[in-house]
């Protein structure tokens, strides 16, 4: 589904990576190794060399907004552009069940963004991304500030997304999570990707 070929950005690369349809692939690496730089380059938020394609279709053959709608990137700290939570969703009432599943207060839509905790921001950011129905999820440590219950729901949502034919590139630091959510993954070491299998 998602194919990265000889991607070069800053000190990274050339990097090759493959995420098949229905698959969740993890990406690990020490902090500062360039995981976020890599993810931003995949989402085309920074210029990079090499080819990135979805289902064999090169991203340069479509507009950047089209690409980003299909390859949905969630940064470790999602950004907000309005005061109220609801303003960030196309249809908040349709998102409420998922928010509830993630342990969020159903009234959170009426809150102001400034009062959200980092865990709430992370979960609302994920709901906002999933509302967009991207085909490939690019998640940067989406469970870093979550408790175990919420973490389990996030992992479940990702699994459901993949079962429905989507795919996911999931950044994690936690070896246990790596084994839970994926069969294979990559480590980013000194600007190069090393494949690893969960055993």
């Amino acid at each position, binding site marked *: 589904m998602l194919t990265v070929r000889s991607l070069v950005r800053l000190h990274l690369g050339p990097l090759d990576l493959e995420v098949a349809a229905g698959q969740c692939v993890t990406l690990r690496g020490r902090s500062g190794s360039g995981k976020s730089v890599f993810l931003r380059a995949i989402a085309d938020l920074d210029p990079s060399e090499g080819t990135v394609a979805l289902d064999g279709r090169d991203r340069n053959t479509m507009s950047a907004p089209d690409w*980003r709608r299909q390859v949905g990137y969630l*940064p470790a700290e999602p950004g907000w552009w309005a005061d109220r939570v609801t303003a960030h969703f196309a249809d908040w009432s349709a998102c409420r069940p998922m928010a509830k599943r993630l342990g969020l207060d159903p009234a959170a839509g009426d809150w102001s963004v400034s009062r959200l905790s980092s865990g709430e921001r992370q979960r609302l950011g994920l709901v906002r991304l999933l509302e967009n129905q991207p085909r490939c999820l690019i998640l940067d440590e989406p469970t870093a500030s979550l408790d175990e219950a919420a973490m389990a729901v996030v992992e479940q949502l990702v699994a459901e997304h993949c079962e429905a034919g989507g795919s996911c590139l999931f950044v994690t630091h936690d070896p246990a999570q790596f084994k839970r959510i994926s069969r294979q993954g990559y480590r980013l070491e000194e600007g190069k990707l090393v494949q690893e299998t969960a055993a």
Partner: protein
Amino acid sequence: MSYVTLDYVDLALAASLLLINGAVSIALSLGLARSLAISSVRMVVQLLLIGLILDFLLATVSPFWTGLAVLVMLGFAGYEAMARQDRRLKGFWAYGLGTGVMTLAALLVMSFALITQVAADPWYHPQYLLPLLGMVLGNCMTGVALAIRSITSALADGKQAVEAQLALGRTFRLSALPMVRSALRTAMTPTINSMAATGLVYLPGMMTGQILAGIDPVEAVKYQLLVMFLIAGATAIGVTGAVFAISRRLSDQRHRLRLDRLTDATAN
């Protein structure tokens, strides 16, 4: 027309008022004495020089020398607008963008005014062209500098907000729209406010100058109104041009936010 001419003794007498500034600075050790001295000497030298240059220009009425004066004024306005920025575009753009939009605004507004309203003979007569351009450009420059500053810092400080929208597949234009709007509002407000305050809070320098020179006050007011309209027009053109040019320069065809095209805030 009649007016009282000043001789240099009168000026020296008035200049003695600067001693108050100096005394305050020294008594309270404000450390302003040095820059006060430099600034006042600069003012005297620059104004006397300009007086001599204008004398020459008005005596010759040459399109070449007048054109050169216009270019120099545009050049300094562009430099001044750039000097007021903490974060600048890299390379030629830091200077070129502001200078470009101001040149465009001044060109449009001045040709409109000189062809249709002022109707000087010849149209480039420096007696009309240079003072009008000076006032239009001075105000346009303040607006453009403010516009560049607000859109640049809005995009730089709002990186997360803009990129969050980009990542969800919105266009750059849509993602940056609130910032474009507020920068335009910030940069246009001073001109609008000054129109409301004119005549009540302060008497514009040009108008009072004409009155001092013995012109009928109502005639002076008419000239002042013309100048205010020209300023409003030039500021609107310059400010809009600057905000859109900057937001274009800080993005690319792939709808990315290109803050890498700015220098660091600390570098200047």
